[in-house]
């Protein structure tokens, strides 16, 4: 279980995370949903120590992290904590941040070799396994610049998987993609969920969140406003903030495509089928 308890983070006088508290079940796909500027991306970055927080407590992958004001760490302690945390928690960035000088395979074997000390042969074996899982076996010798956006994202996912973490964080996985690719990402995430990974996705796209999530945490004003299963939060939101957000989203949608809500339900089903198809290849 991932536990976030009373986390506070400030940039100067600006409080980005304001007593954020929530739990995330293991092996589930949880979306942190919220408007832009609500602190959800900062929350995600705190979860693998790309950012430090001032107060509160985080337990993730069995590692406990306390706010910098609660416990001062020496440089060596900090290094050790970061190392243990990142061993268990991977991240897929919004714009992927692939290493442009390495091929798809190179991207996926780099960290297993330098961090875990795997031999090249071992690392290649692991990396090929995950590149196959994301359907990119044929592209392993391509450089990122030679791949499409969707393919790049899948390389980024394979790169994170190759470290075999318990938790994978996704920062706005749909924002850098064309609309027609969003479905494909959803399918991919469902497939990963079935591998038993704990997935945490940050998104502001309600329809996407609804189509993929087991659990949803609605985030606003630097803290979790409401949490529950996707059916609970979307079907019967309890808090006025949540309702207002959903309302505004639906209004926006209805301007464009009134049927999209219904469609995203069927997307979810498609996604599940797709998942089985992908994994079927594996087995």
């Amino acid at each position, binding site marked *: 279980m991932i536990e976030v308890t009373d986390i506070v983070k400030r940039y100067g006088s600006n409080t980005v995370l304001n007593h954020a508290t929530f739990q995330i079940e293991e092996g589930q796909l949880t979306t942190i949903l919220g408007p832009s500027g609500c602190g959800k991306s900062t929350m995600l970055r705190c979860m693998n120590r*790309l950012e430090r927080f001032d107060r509160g407590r985080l337990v993730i992958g069995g590692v406990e992290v306390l706010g910098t004001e609660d416990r001062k760490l020496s440089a060596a302690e900090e290094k050790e904590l970061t190392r243990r945390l*990142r061993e268990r928690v991977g991240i897929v960035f919004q714009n992927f941040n692939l*290493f442009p000088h390495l091929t798809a395979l190179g991207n996926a074997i780099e960290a297993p070799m330098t961090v875990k000390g795997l031999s090249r042969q071992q690392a290649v074996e692991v990396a090929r396994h995950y590149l196959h899982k994301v359907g990119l076996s044929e592209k392993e010798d391509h450089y990122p610049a*030679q791949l499409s956006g969707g393919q790049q994202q899948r390389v980024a996912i394979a790169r994170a998987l190759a470290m075999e973490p318990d938790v994978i964080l996704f920062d706005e996985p749909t924002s850098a993609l064309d609309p027609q690719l969003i479905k494909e990402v959803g399918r991919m995430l469902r497939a990963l969920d079935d591998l038993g990974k704990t997935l945490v996705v940050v998104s502001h796209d309600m329809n996407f969140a609804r189509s993929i999530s087991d659990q949803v945490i609605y985030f606003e004003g630097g803290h979790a406003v409401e949490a529950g299963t996707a059916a609970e939060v979307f079907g019967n939101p309890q808090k006025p903030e949540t309702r207002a957000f959903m309302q505004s989203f639906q209004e926006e949608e209805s301007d464009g495509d009134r049927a999209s809500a219904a469609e995203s339900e069927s997307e979810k089903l498609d996604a599940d089928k797709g998942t089985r198809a992908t994994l079927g290849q594996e087995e």
Partner: protein
Amino acid sequence: MSELVRSTAAALLLLALLQISALAQSAAPSTLQRVRQTGVLRIGTDATYPPLEYVENGQFAGFEIDLATAIARELGARPEFINASFDGIFPALQNGSFDAVISSVTITPERSAQMLFSDPYYDSGQLIAVRQGTQGIERPEQLVGKRVGVQINTTAQIDLEKRTGVSVAVYNTIDLAMLDLKNGRIDAVVGDAPVLRFMIRQSFRELQTVGRRFTDEKFGIAFAQSSDDLRRAVNAALWRIQDSGEYDRIHEKWFGEVAERTADQAASSTRTKVFDTELVRKTWQLFLKGVWLTAKLAFLSLLLGLPIGLMLSLARVQSSRLLAAPAAVYVEVIRGTPLLVQILFIYFVLPLFGIHLPAFTSGVIALTLNSAAYISEIFRAGILSIDVGQMEAARALGMTYAQAMRRIILPQTFRRVVPPLTNEGIALLKDSSLVSVIGLTELARTGQELASRYAAPLTIWPIVALFYLLLTFPLTRVAEYLERRWRPITRS
């Protein structure tokens, strides 16, 4: 670099040296003892001054070369001539790079205050050269209101600068002054009489000397102030050479009627040309030594400058002030001071602290330290140009800062900095010409010597330029190769 900066730098350095060397000298072993022990008399000379001293087919030649050889023999030593440009020759003497300077040095009160002189061995004087047909310039008083060319640091420069109203143009070598006179940019050239006559006969026949020597100057052999014992021994040798008639024979060989007549005949049998293809055929091999030295200097300095520059840039981009601040100061100081001064400092000042480095080593060190500062900024700009997401992604995968730098950031940086690094390499290649000031006969200095020896700057300098161009070729090819190899990665 402007002459003013060069000579000011040399003068300041000399002054500093005198202050420090006074303290350092007391314990040094006697110069004469050392000459006797090693059997070598090291003589500094600026061999761009025919017929007094010049380089002929790679060998030193001239009146003073013969004289110095005779003196060394009298001392029971072998002469070792070290070619040094005139603006650096006295600092080099002071720091012990050679034991004596024989380079048409006129004994003046100013110079006597800074170094020791042998008895005079040659009477010279300044003479005026003008274009043929020029009226009204025969005496120095008539130079007022005129623009007059001289060689840097010579008594001609010292004399003319004392005369108010004379506009003095200072040249590195006398052949360039003659060329400028021929081209009409200056009105006259003032220099040592035999040298002017040589130049005119060789290839400036549109010019002529006028009037008579207007100064009475005596050449002396210069020594560092600590070398009084050597000075006395050389004086004794000079007397013996004069008594034995050998001095007269040497003088006759270079300035006698026979010599003058032969030279005139040789000169009149050839036509002076703007670009002398015959001279190219005769000298191209001599260039190769200079080319080789320049290539070695630039290659070694670049090879050493790259890792040092990389270290400096890494020190600056990481977060600890402890490393970043000294690196920043280093870059600031090196970039903010002239390379020439750095070369002079390493070669002339370090010996005062007991660090004696040969000229080549000093040159490589100076060029390395200098280029490292520029290279570090190229690397730093390259590192900073890499998206911060790259470092984040690497760290998020568990890599340490050092691993991320080595495996992710630097490989991308190298691909980006090839063009500016090529620039720096080419600049370094050409900047290496500045080491001629500490007596290294690299390509540009070779050109200087040949241009004055044959009084043919217009033939020699284009060849020098061509050789530099050829030297930059391998660099640009390597850069092209790397860029081609990395194209599939940078394509997007």
